[in-house]
């Protein structure tokens, strides 16, 4: 199939970017979207033109490294699918496709479709963990975890940290990402001791990073490649509120987002 792409090209964080038009004459329905870009890049290099930079690694939809907007939708907007797992059979001959990087204040562009998502790591560093020093753990079966709790924790833990939720959100909020970690750890008995602290710290860091507030639009859930449900945001709100009420001045560091 023949495709026309309009791709966001931006040399580096400080440079001015713009859309550039490319023709792909030889796309094939069995290719993944990234393989289609590989083919285009090979042709660009042969012509002596700078290939399009995009992040990718595992190409199995699990590492969370890939992701950009396809026709205004994060990862292309196909249910439960990262862009590396999106196959060209979903497109047809003659399609015109627009590719842009994630757009958010907290995700500055590195080059072309590549952005810096370090803000997500800093949110986890602030409190997205259970303090469990290496070596001191009791036998694993001492803690019984009801199957339902384990399943709910796993549903939330499936987050791959790709940033699609932020890119899709009109406010560029990170509420789904934060909620996923708060729910994962909060559903487990091991996560209870630090539950208040975690909610306060993660929400505070989220605000520091420049993510805006959640207004319950739900775009994040719609594009999430791991289908993390909106309920996780309610859980953040609940945990945050409970912690803020009991935490004194430490809790007064802004809204839950």
């Amino acid at each position: 199939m023949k495709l026309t792409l309009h791709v966001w090209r931006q040399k580096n964080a400080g440079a001015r970017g713009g859309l550039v038009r490319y023709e792909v004459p030889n796309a094939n329905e069995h290719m993944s979207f990234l393989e289609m870009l590989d083919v285009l890049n090979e042709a660009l290099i042969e012509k002596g033109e700078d290939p399009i930079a995009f992040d990718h690694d595992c190409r199995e939809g699990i590492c969370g490294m890939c992701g950009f907007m396809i026709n205004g939708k994060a990862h292309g907007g196909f249910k439960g699918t990262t862009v590396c797992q999106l196959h060209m059979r979903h497109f047809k001959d003659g399609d015109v496709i627009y590719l842009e990087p994630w757009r958010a204040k907290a995700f500055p562009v590195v080059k072309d479709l590549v952005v810096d998502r370090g803000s997500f790591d800093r949110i986890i560093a602030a409190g997205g963990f259970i303090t469990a020093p290496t070596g001191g753990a009791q036998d694993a079966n001492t803690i019984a975890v009801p199957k339902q709790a384990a399943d709910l924790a796993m549903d939330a833990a499936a987050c791959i940290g790709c940033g699609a939720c932020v890119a899709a959100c009109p406010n560029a909020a990170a509420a789904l990402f934060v909620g996923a970690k708060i729910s994962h750890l909060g559903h487990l008995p091991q996560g209870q001791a630090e539950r208040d602290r975690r909610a306060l710290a993660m929400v505070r860091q989220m605000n520091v990073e420049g993510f805006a507030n959640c207004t319950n639009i739900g775009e994040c859930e719609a594009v999430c490649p791991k289908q993390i449900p909106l309920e996780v945001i309610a859980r953040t709100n609940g945990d945050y509120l409970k912690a803020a009420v009991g935490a004194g001045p430490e809790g007064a560091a802004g809204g839950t987002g």
Partner: protein
Amino acid sequence: MELNSHAPTGPIEQAWDKHKFELKLVNPANKRKYNIIVVGCGLAGGAAAASLGELGYNVQCFCYQDSPRRAHSIAAQGGINAAKNYHNDGDSIFRLFYDTVKGGDFRSREANVYRLAQVSVNIIDQCVAQGVPFAREYGGLLDNRSFGGAQVSRTFYARGQTGQQLLLGAYQALERQIGLGTVTMNERTEMLDLIVVDGQARGIVTRDLCDGKIEVHIADAVILATGGYGNVFYLSTNAKGCNATAIWRAYKRGALFANPCFTQIHPTCIPVAGEYQSKLTLMSESLRNDGRIWVPKKPGDKRPPASIPEDERDYYLERRYPSFGNLVPRDIASRAAKAECDAGHGVGETGLGVYLDFSEAMKRLGQQKIAERYGNLFEMYERITGENPYEVPMRIYPAIHYTMGGLWVDYNLMSTIPGLFVLGEANFSDHGANRLGASALMQGLADGYFIIPYTIGNYLATAKPGKVAADAPAVKEAVANAAAITKKLLNGSGTRTVDSFHRELGKIVWDYCGMARNEAGLKKALTLIPALREEFWKNVKVLGTNEEFNQSLEKAGRVADFFELAELMCRDALERNESCGGHFREEFQTPEGEALRDDDHYSYVSAWEYQAEGAAPALNKEPLTFEYVHPSQRSYK
């Protein structure tokens, strides 16, 4: 070179405890005076960096990805082994040890494997404490599944995303240390050289992948946990960025490379669809628990699978290996699939595929149960192939997946360069000639959480590394070397892309040093590879400059190293005149077509020593002795 494994003597059950007690300690107040570099942050590197930071060392951690949560450990699907015997089915530390030594076809070091089996139980405890959401039974206790090469259920899992959940556990522990300031994380940074001063590993040279800045990092010890080299084959189940540059450049600085030809072909991957294919996707081995593998009995039978009656199907694994059936180890399942396809029984458009069929299991357990166990894998399969595995059997074919070879390490996980430690897939240590399923996660975490924190302290306390000046000759030389390679890659006015070279190299290695090898083929590869490498350096086309985000330049440096490593793999495969595990030399097989080991002549680790550019490497041998598990022909019949 004399290779001393430093493996403890005495009863194997007490060896690690005794050894731990004998290891010297670093006083808590002195730990912060030591700087440790960790390159790579998958299960091994992430766990090591987090644990060492927690102990109080100053840790610098590096990864090429944009975040430490991306390392390819994340893609492991099936599970992690541990000898918990929660299911009362006869498991024990000794049995896990036994299975792993046997599964590795008697080419691993007994003391290391025993220790691995021992600490496996601590790993599960540690991960549960961190909040890893392992699968549970209704009573709230941990669930297990069975895996290839074992007759007990000892595999812990988190749906089909066990690697992801274990990595996120390590990543969260690491981020906690980053938040506390004990670990400094350097993302989008690639190691280009190792700095060796007075024979000790004292730092690394890196390139910042965003702006090309070449930097020097000095430390008291260096840990490489950079994963395997499966991408030498171009098409593999590894992530696109996985590379051997760190271990290869350490090899060129004097670290020995052990058993490079021991590579693992995974039997259950989605078959190749076309020339443009960029990578292969694995379907977890756990699928073989419920899926039955078959091909049509009639060669070239092109009927759709549903129209092939039961008595015209050959469930060849169940036929050839009745006691293990579809759960034979990976090397055996892979070779059997290749044999069927070579004999014309392969299915799919290319004829390079076999069926993995769940219809019988769905009849027995119901579609719901199958969806619960493998739902995400079935979805992934459908997304890639466009076929629904609930209705049509999956088509699978073997693909390169894991590399048992790696830098040689002693029992303390230290390479032949003092102060250079190597963990996880990057070392050669525990899996011999074939790794059993659900053992890679176990080894990565064992090395990172439970072994390196002890052994590195002993090194620091005994070696007492002194100061290194930032302008020491060895530092300058390493920087110059890294810069020279980059300059050479950018200098060309070539015409061929990096990928086109990589693809061609991969095909040579797959054809002559893949699932089956022979003398003539390996000799041929040893002429083809240097010729292609020569063309690469003359004709590779890398655009742009060093001082920018340049993905072609990154790839070119990695492919340059793959060329050299591919040659060493073939050399090693040619030297080893026997078949064992993943190394199948066609000249050495039993009348039934099974691997024929030669314990009299090849019961050793091949450890290759770099000499000079263009000179043949020297072979050093670490003899292997087996006191507890006596070598026998591996039989899964």
